[in-house]
């Protein structure tokens, strides 16, 4: 029972972390290696707004989400736009800018465990006989809400349909008058905001640490590798697989082994099916 509940929470946590990355890659084929950096960035911005500027929680959260989206837009407009299509450079540049962001916070003195965000809802309850606090329930609720909203957005709005068009066939979509740069910007903004949302929901469970930037990137990449990069259903399935696998190892072994399990999952996936569970174009994907 405990495994079931905490596995669910952990899986939704992974979905929150990974969905932004897979969204950007799925739409524009852009690997956003600054994903983890934006995660940490949002956390610290929210912390600064609440504790230094003294804003109430809701406006601070909204503003920090907005700033995360802004960082995404800036990264796209000033960096990715100019080097789009050069795979190697996209990776190196976004990775470098992410490292720069994370290490700037470290330099500014944001280290240690003294930085915490307030929880959305205080208190805890019991499901069956398992204690669970409301914030963890919020993770599940917000994770599912985000999935539903993304689904509705890409299904029913014009912008969302344009995004799907670019994702399916960029040239054909461009021929129909969809601006590829515009959708790229939107995708980056959305992906970054999702990473920011994950930060706002997940950081109250612990403290904001710089290292979370790298860990988040690893988890996001692991989920995407196992699920097949750019495949949304793959991301969800892989989140559940990895989420439960992690909780099971934590329960029966030790916390340290979480990462080892993740690595094992990736290597197994690579050996068995390199394009991931839901990787499309198998023949093509295996050579990318």
């Amino acid at each position, binding site marked *: 029972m405990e495994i079931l509940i905490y596995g669910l929470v952990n899986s939704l946590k992974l979905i929150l972390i990974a969905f932004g990355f897979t969204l950007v890659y799925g739409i524009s084929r852009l*690997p956003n*290696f600054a994903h983890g950096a934006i995660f940490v960035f949002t956390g610290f911005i929210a912390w600064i707004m609440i504790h230094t500027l003294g804003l109430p929680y809701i406006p601070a959260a909204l503003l920090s989400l907005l700033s995360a989206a802004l960082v995404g837009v800036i990264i796209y407009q*000033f*960096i990715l736009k*100019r*080097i789009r299509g050069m*795979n*190697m*450079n996209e*990776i*190196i*540049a976004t*990775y*470098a*800018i992410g*490292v*720069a962001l994370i*290490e*700037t916070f*470290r*330099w500014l003195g944001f280290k240690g465990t003294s930085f915490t965000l307030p929880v959305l809802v205080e208190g805890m309850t019991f499901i069956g006989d398992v204690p669970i606090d409301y914030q963890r329930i919020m993770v599940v609720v917000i994770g599912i809400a985000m999935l539903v909203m993304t689904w509705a957005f890409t299904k029913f709005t014009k912008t969302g349909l344009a995004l799907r068009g670019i994702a399916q066939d960029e040239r054909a979509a461009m021929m129909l008058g969809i601006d590829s740069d515009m959708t790229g910007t939107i995708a980056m903004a959305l992906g970054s905001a999702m990473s920011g949302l994950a930060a706002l929901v997940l950081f109250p469970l612990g403290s904001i640490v710089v290292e979370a930037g*790298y860990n988040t*990137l*690893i988890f996001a*990449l*692991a989920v*995407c*590798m196992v699920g097949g*990069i750019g495949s949304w259903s793959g991301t969800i399935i892989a989140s559940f697989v990895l989420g439960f696998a992690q909780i099971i190892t934590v329960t029966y072994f*030790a916390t*340290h*082994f979480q*990462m*080892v399990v*993740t*690595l094992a999952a*990736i*290597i197994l996936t*690579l*050996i068995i099916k*390199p394009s991931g569970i839901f990787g499309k174009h198998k023949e093509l994907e*295996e*050579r*990318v």
Partner: protein
Amino acid sequence: MKTGMRKERIDRGIKVRSEGIYALSSWQELSYLLAPRMLLIIGLLAAPLVLFFFPYWQKVLLIICIFSLLSMSFDFLANYVGLVCLGGAFFVGVGGYGAALLNKFLHLPPLLSIPAAALGGALFCTLSLLPCLPLRGVYFAIITLMYPLMMTRIIEAFELFGGTNGLMDIAGFANPWVEQYFLVIATLVFLFALRRLAVEDIGLVIKGVKDNDQSVRASGINITTVKAKAIFLASFLGCFAGAYLAHIYMWAGLSMFALDFSIIPIAATVIGGGGSLLGAVIGSILLVPLSEALRAFGPLRIVFYSLILTVVIVVKGEGLLSYLARKYYQFERWINI
């Protein structure tokens, strides 16, 4: 009719002449060909002597050589084989731990443990990267980025090799001259050997894998084997550097898997100019002293590097080496059009 001026670039006469048999016809042409190479070789060989009175900078020279090796390893993988490896620290860590273990438990002297660790480490790295070899581009970059991070987690989790404290009391070099010259000469040998390898048959095949792996496969060559060989070479360089570092610091620990060893070589390669191996060395010669000067700023160093790296990539700097080479081989003049 509108007329305008345009800049034209032409090869210098001496370059054209010295490409053929005429190269041997005069001292002038011989020295034109040899000067750049000799500048590097003699410069590096003389550096330990010149820096004799500045022990601190002698250490910096060692670090320069270490990073040159790492940059060459990155450059070779990225620009010859087409595998972007974001995890140079993996090679360093494996080599470093390997040398430390050999020295601590088998009591091998540094001059034996370094080559042994380089070979063994290269084998280990190749084997662990073997499942990832069918991947290219983003996929390969992602997976290599994870390896060093995972290694630190595994060592922490299983409390291997002294856990978070690392392995201490590793033997240092008895003689500072041996320490310096062994590394400087090794760097030069690796540089020229790799450059030579790139124009041999196997180098041609390796470059073919980068440009069009399907046609290489169509010629009946197994590309995974070729890639594995290339990884072995690159990780040999990386492990060698790591093993050397362990003996310089007389310590091997988790920080050998640190980010610096991944990102600085990439920055050095991009700034020096990728694709020539020499550019990687020049980039390290520029960046490492800069890094030492910035040491007081702590984490800001990495911020600074990453920003330079991003700017250079975005404004499409061709790299210092290709700029210098162009100035050396060609001249410019204005012509009417």
